[in-house]
């Protein structure tokens, strides 16, 4: 197993109290596998990723419990210096907005080369040659001429390719992509996702794809973890979940995708708002918005019920997953 997150808890101390951003998340990624983490803003998907990368802002953030096993070693027990050497070399992250994630005062060649200077101790000249190689690899046209350009001289899609190149520079075994295509327009989105998927296959990397776009997920992911209020509410292989969701929240997400045959009708939306993380409702966190909620949902927190064990593992954190699955 490449990465295994076990019962992770993350809290943020705020002026109004302790916000529980992640409440016992379990997920795992194998080499060459793509896990899509799906959820609304504030569901804890990015915070989980930051905890894995070790770039959580501490304080106000705090890892309150759990384990993050990377190649069998618990990252949370490592010394900071050791983690720093892993970051970038063995696990890397792709950020949402490449324009703000690239340093405006350094040329892209310098930023790409920096990876080799920091981790491999290469000379500037060699690092620059490697930077050109990387830019070719993510198919930036005229890489040799553009290596000395600044980030603002590239288009959005090209900038995201540069972000991908930076993440891939040292051929890490795990990549976390935090909404890599959200800031791009639709045609470019597909190109960037295809590139990412292709490079992943080539290098046999594990990929955690954080997104709220179900359309992106269907094409590239192997399995999906749906998060709500800091918990995983449903985990399943990608095709199973599209066929028959086993959690009312997942069902709501799927129903809110616009479809061609719904022309002229009002688009479905899950009513209500995501819960305030300072005051997560008792019982199932989704119960105030759930169309199937009953008394049990308001009192008891649902565990992650196994839905099927084989041939594929599926789980749902709904007391009434059977009704949801078949209804």
């Amino acid at each position, binding site marked *: 197993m490449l990465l295994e997150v076990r019962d992770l808890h993350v809290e943020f101390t705020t002026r109004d109290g302790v916000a529980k951003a992640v409440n016992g998340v379990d997920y795992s990624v194998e080499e060459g596998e793509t896990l899509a983490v799906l959820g609304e803003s504030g569901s804890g998907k990015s915070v989980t990723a930051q905890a894995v990368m070790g*770039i959580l802002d501490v304080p106000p953030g705090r890892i309150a419990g759990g384990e993050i096993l990377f190649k069998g070693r618990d990252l949370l027990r490592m010394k900071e210096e050791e983690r720093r050497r892993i970051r*970038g070399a063995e696990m890397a992250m792709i950020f949402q907005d490449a324009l703000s994630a690239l*340093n405006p005062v350094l040329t892209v060649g310098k930023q790409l080369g*920096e990876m080799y200077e920091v981790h491999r101790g290469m000379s500037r000249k060699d690092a620059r040659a490697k930077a050109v190689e990387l830019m070719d690899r993510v198919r930036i046209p005229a890489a040799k001429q553009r290596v000395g350009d600044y980030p603002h001289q590239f288009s959005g899609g090209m900038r995201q390719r540069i972000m991908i190149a930076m993440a891939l*520079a040292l051929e890490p075994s795990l990549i976390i992509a935090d909404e890599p295509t959200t800031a791009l327009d639709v045609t470019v989105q597909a190109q960037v996702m295809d590139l990412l998927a292709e490079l992943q296959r080539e290098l046999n990397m594990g990929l955690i794809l954080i997104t709220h776009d179900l359309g992106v997920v269907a094409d590239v992911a192997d399995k999906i973890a749906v998060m709500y209020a800091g918990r995983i509410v449903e985990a399943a292989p990608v095709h199973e979940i599209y066929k028959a969701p086993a959690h009312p929240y997942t069902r709501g997400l799927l129903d809110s995708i616009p479809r061609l045959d719904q022309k002229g009708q009002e688009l479905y939306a899950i009513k209500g708002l995501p819960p305030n993380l300072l005051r997560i409702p008792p019982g199932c966190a989704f119960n105030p918005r759930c169309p199937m909620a009953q008394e049990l949902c308001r009192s008891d927190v649902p565990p992650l019920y196994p839905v099927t064990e084989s041939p594929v593992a599926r789980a749902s954190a709904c007391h009434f997953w059977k009704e949801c699955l078949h209804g």
Partner: protein
Amino acid sequence: MPDPERPEPAGYDPVGPRPKEAVSPTGQGGPMDLALDEAESVEGIEKTAGPGASGPRERARSLWSDAWHQLRRNPVFIVSAALILFLVLIAIWPQLIASGDPLQCDLSKSQQGSAPGHPFGYDTQGCDVYTRTVYGARASITVGVCATLGAALLGSALGGLAGFFGGWGDSLLSRVADIFFGIPVVLGGLVFLSVVTSTTVWPVVGFIVLLGWPQIARIARGSVITAKQNDYVQAARALGAGNARMLLRHVAPNAVAPVIVVATIALGTYIALEATLSFLGVGLRPPTVSWGIDISNAASQIRNAPHMLLWPAGALSITVLAFIMLGDAVRDALDPKLR
């Protein structure tokens, strides 16, 4: 941010530091205005690019080259820079325009008006006012430049570290800075400098640094805090950069502009402060030649011999004005929001 696609106007003459190579249409022998450390690798690029590989491309503009481009067309900058260049030259080589000795005086000519070879007349001691005004630039520029460098280095180092790491060190530094802010400049000068017996410029420089660093530290702290919240600093961390690399390579270059602006404007006020302290008799002392000392000596004789006051005071005003104008121009160029 400037429009990246903006084409260069025809006849644009590249001057100044630009870390970008120009590729000629033929792919060989492009303009050799390259940054030094990139010259080698660029040669390789030009050889392999081949004819017709790319047309003449617009030049990369970093914040700095863009600011420089803007500055060069600003008349305020040209005037102030020319003045400052002149002042610096005569501060280093006053003999260039004054052949006399500022300390060679003839009491018999006390307070006389202008005479052939002595256009500004004589002061109470019979010294040539023109020569003394020219030589006075040295003290003012030395104090201004050294005090600004000292305050900027100390202030940005302390403020930058405090802003980057935060925590109790930050709180402590901010309170210490508040204490120094609370010291009244003239009163503090009278107290601290009246016990000093040295006749060099260093006690004055030291005092100005002592009072000047908190201002720079506040600016540096604020702009480092802003810069460190940028995604690219997080990204650098996620890709394995350590604290030193993040601070020096990713935060500092993006936080330094406001510090430069404030320091440039402060330089003018530091020169005025030196003159104030010298006027009060606690700044520079004779035999150092200083505009402040001359203004002080001339002030009581203003009705008998106003020329003794006007020339050094005029020189002081123009110098302070030049530095403040330069600071203004630099601020306009470095702050994209003001464009």
